[in-house]
């Protein structure tokens, strides 16, 4: 009766093997490493880069312990931290600005382990040190901007369509158009409706008999604008974070209007805040096309009043210093297609003042080139330098010509990057120094180790061989828990380590329940085999019930918890599930293996069984059994 079919042993064996393999990477120490990645879509990370990295390191005679290419970039392991810094400087100099070279720590586990996805547990910021920011996006500002944009758009549309109106203005987030004549209003309404499907229109007349048309953003359009704003902010943050040279940054949306930025290993929070909060600026300037001026500039004599920049393609451009228009006049830039030629294009939308300036400038400069310059970190780069084909009024500009769809996307993004879609504010910050992180790991590890040792000694002493089995089952639980955490790459935080300790302390409950039941059955005079059987079966219902309630608490913590507490919840829930497997299934397997084969089992090693009185019926005198 106490035997397992072979497949059950196989299940246990396979689980242990998988558990062991995925736990393995955690046992290797971490070695200093340098990681090469890129933030630019056009730059490829491939074997050529790997070869380039290896060549650069060999040329500079930097000793390294192997370089590997993976999805995120090239990673080079190095013998010590001094060489690490030397390697970073060497590589940054050799590879240039297109690549991000960051310091990192990598597990020294063998290649085949990483190849099957066996990685060490992903440590949270409180364990590895770093910065966590929670940024709140000001959505009201995003909607304000949208309302501004529509005010301009409606005004230019009505002019274009030669509609008679007496004024266009903003009231709150609504655009209000005033008319003198009802027929004109109806005509305008039809036009606006056709041109801007995102606006909900209604007629509302002011007290003085003034005819008014009120345009408000439809709720779904509002949502789209807000989503767009947060997406755009995330993209911009990502570009900026890349500059910090962080190995594994996390930039994620949280909720409707928040962004989480986690920068492991970053210590200089002041600089991080500075870079995250910085606004790049966009400038539109005219290209200096005087004959010979460019050649002269390339020779080293930049004409007075001009700057020599490079275009994104690499071509030099000589640009006049006078700024025609700044980026804050740009309401929006979206990639799209030229309606006539079907070429990829970028549609830019300027605000009222911008539109007026742009109209004048384009009228005077038809046939000439204008440069769109992105100034970031004090360095300027020409995004594109298109030729002005005609006078452009109305504030709606299209940039097209010799662009791929991808380039159009990039240019649109960069033009928008002039400013964040909506301002952001830091609403939460958590910074942990590297030494504190190390200390937290040590303390957490010590808690688990010492607790586990004392607990094992106690259980083994109290339940003898059955106690040893329980302890082994508990170790299996730890092994499985660590391997699952490694497999899922769930973030391990200090509360997470606490959860490991706590879960182990709670998981032993299942084995105590089983062992107590077996003793009780033996006390009542059951044969050892029957006692084992009954002990496991009866305890199972109780174990299930109690684990479900614990799981409910864990899930609630996971749903409502944030940051470190969520880490606690994840480990707690996983630990409960692995404990059910190990405490019941695995320990039963061991018991069956040891006792199951013996036909005449006289005694189980479960410690002394005390009987109140061997002659009276089992249980208690008045138990009425």
């Amino acid at each position, binding site marked *: 009766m106490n035997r397992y079919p072979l497949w059950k042993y196989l299940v246990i064996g396979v689980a242990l093997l998988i558990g062991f393999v995925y736990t393995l990477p955690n046992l290797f120490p971490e070695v200093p490493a340098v990681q090469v990645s890129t933030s630019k879509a056009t730059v490829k990370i491939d074997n050529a880069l790997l070869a380039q990295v290896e060549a650069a390191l060999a040329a500079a005679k930097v000793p390294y312990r192997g370089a590997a290419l993976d999805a995120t970039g090239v990673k080079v392991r190095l013998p010590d931290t001094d060489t690490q810094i030397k390697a970073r400087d060497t590589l940054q100099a050799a590879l240039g600005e297109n690549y991000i070279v960051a310091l990192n720590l990598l597990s020294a586990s063998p290649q085949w382990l990483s190849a099957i996805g066996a990685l060490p547990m992903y440590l949270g910021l409180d364990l590895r040190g770093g910065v966590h920011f929670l940024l709140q996006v000001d959505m009201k500002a995003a909607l304000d901007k949208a309302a501004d944009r529509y005010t301009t758009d409606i005004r230019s549309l009505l002019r274009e369509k030669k509609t008679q109106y007496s004024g266009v203005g903003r009231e709150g987030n609504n655009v209000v158009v005033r008319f003198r004549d009802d027929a004109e209003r109806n005509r305008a309404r039809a036009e606006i409706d056709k041109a801007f499907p995102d606006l909900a229109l209604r007629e509302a007349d002011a007290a003085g008999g003034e005819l008014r048309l009120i345009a408000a953003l439809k709720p779904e359009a509002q949502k789209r604008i807000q989503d767009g704003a947060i997406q755009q902010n995330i993209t911009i943050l990502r570009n900026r974070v890349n500059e910090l040279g962080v190995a594994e940054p996390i930039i994620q949306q949280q909720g409707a209007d928040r962004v989480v930025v986690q920068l492991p290993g970053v210590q200089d929070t002041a600089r991080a805040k500075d870079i995250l909060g910085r606004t790049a600026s966009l400038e539109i300037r005219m290209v200096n096309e005087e004959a010979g001026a460019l050649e002269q500039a390339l020779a080293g004599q930049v004409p007075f009043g001009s700057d020599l920049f490079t275009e994104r393609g690499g071509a030099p451009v000589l640009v006049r210093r006078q700024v025609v228009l700044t980026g804050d006049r740009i309401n929006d830039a979206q990639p799209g297609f030229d309606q006539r030629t079907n070429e990829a294009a970028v549609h830019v939308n300027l605000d009222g003042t911008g539109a007026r300036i742009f109209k004048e400038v384009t009228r005077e400069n038809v046939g000439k080139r204008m440069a769109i310059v992105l100034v970031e970190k004090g360095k300027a780069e020409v995004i594109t330098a298109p030729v002005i084909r005609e006078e452009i009024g109305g504030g709606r500009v299209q940039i097209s010509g010799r662009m791929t769809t991808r380039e159009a996307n990039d240019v649109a993004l960069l033009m928008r990057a002039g400013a964040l879609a909506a301002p952001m504010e830091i609403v939460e910050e958590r910074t942990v*120094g590297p030494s504190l992180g190390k200390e937290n790991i040590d303390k957490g590890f010590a808690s688990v180790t010492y607790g586990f040792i004392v607990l094992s000694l106690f259980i083994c002493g109290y339940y003898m061989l059955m106690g040893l089995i329980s302890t082994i089952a508990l170790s299996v639980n730890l092994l499985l828990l660590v391997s699952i955490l490694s497999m899922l790459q769930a973030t391990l935080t200090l509360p997470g380590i606490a959860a490991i*300790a706590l879960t182990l302390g709670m998981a032993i409950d299942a084995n105590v329940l089983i062992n*107590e039941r077996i003793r009780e*059955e033996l006390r009542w005079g059951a044969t050892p085999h029957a006692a084992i059987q009954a002990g496991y079966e009866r305890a199972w219902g109780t174990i299930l019930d109690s684990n479900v309630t614990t799981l409910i*608490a864990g899930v609630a913590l996971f749903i409502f918890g944030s940051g470190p507490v969520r880490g606690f919840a994840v480990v707690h829930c996983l630990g409960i599930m692995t404990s059910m497997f190990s405490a019941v299934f695995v320990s039963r397997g061991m018991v069956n293996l040891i006792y199951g084969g013996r036909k005449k089992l006289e005694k189980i090693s479960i410690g002394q069984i005390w009987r109140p009185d061997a002659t009276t019926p089992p249980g208690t005198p008045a138990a009425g059994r």
Partner: protein
Amino acid sequence: MEFFRFKRDIPFMRYALVFNVISGVTFVLAVFFLATRGLNLGVDFRGGTVIEVTYAHPVDFNRLRGAIDKLALGEYSAQSFGASDTALIRLPLKEGVSSAKLSEQVMTTLKADDPSATQQRVEFVGPQVGRELFENGALALLLVSAGIVGYLAMRFEWRFAVAAIIANLHDIVIILGFFALFQWEFSLPVLAAILAVLGYSVNESVVVADRIRENFRKMRKASVTHVIDNAITSTMSRTIITHGSTQLMVTSMLLFGGETLHYFALALTIGILFGIYSSVLVMAPLVMWMGVSREDLVKPEKKAGLEGEKIVP
């Protein structure tokens, strides 16, 4: 070796009133401290900035305060944290001041005053986030309670569910009472500990309830009081061993876990100690008084599989 050798059932239910009066008094005291002293909410819930600074030597608090005073930040507190070379500075939220910049200001000042000052940790929580964390914590507590009541009502009977949740929420209030009385800092990890305790000590009630149900089936002629007494007595050994084991781990955290895990482990310790008591000795009398009977639990159509009556010796 066996610790618990009960020759006969301990007549727990005879003293039911005593147990409930004891826990009633503890509960009232806890509420009293909560009401008069209030919880010492940490930066997670109240918002504000916390800076942990270490020095190469024991902290000279007069000098440190003198340096911070120069910034004229208003109210703040600075105290030693864990070791004598570590100081914890707490700055409350201030309207209109960009708190994100605050920690930098303080660190710059401290570094200028004493170059050995090293920033170990900064936590800043804005007012809105703090409020949300608080609300989410309350919601989590509510969800856990509802989930447990629902599950127990489904699995056993509503009386058990109600009794168990009363017993265990009363534990929570007592933990909170301790935190209020000693003005220990109530932070996110403490909240996690409290919810874990809630899930955990319900186990206790589950084990006893399981046994009560089983006894109702087996002890056909016994009175309700007797059934409960027997259930508690026969699970006593398991209860103590299990809690002892968990407490071993928690004690290890208390000893080796450092400052960050200190209050977490403390909350667990109180929870475990009171959990044993209340989930057994408060829950069972409540069930009894609510008038549980054999018919409520032993229904003919009830699945008997879990109890495995075929193997009754």
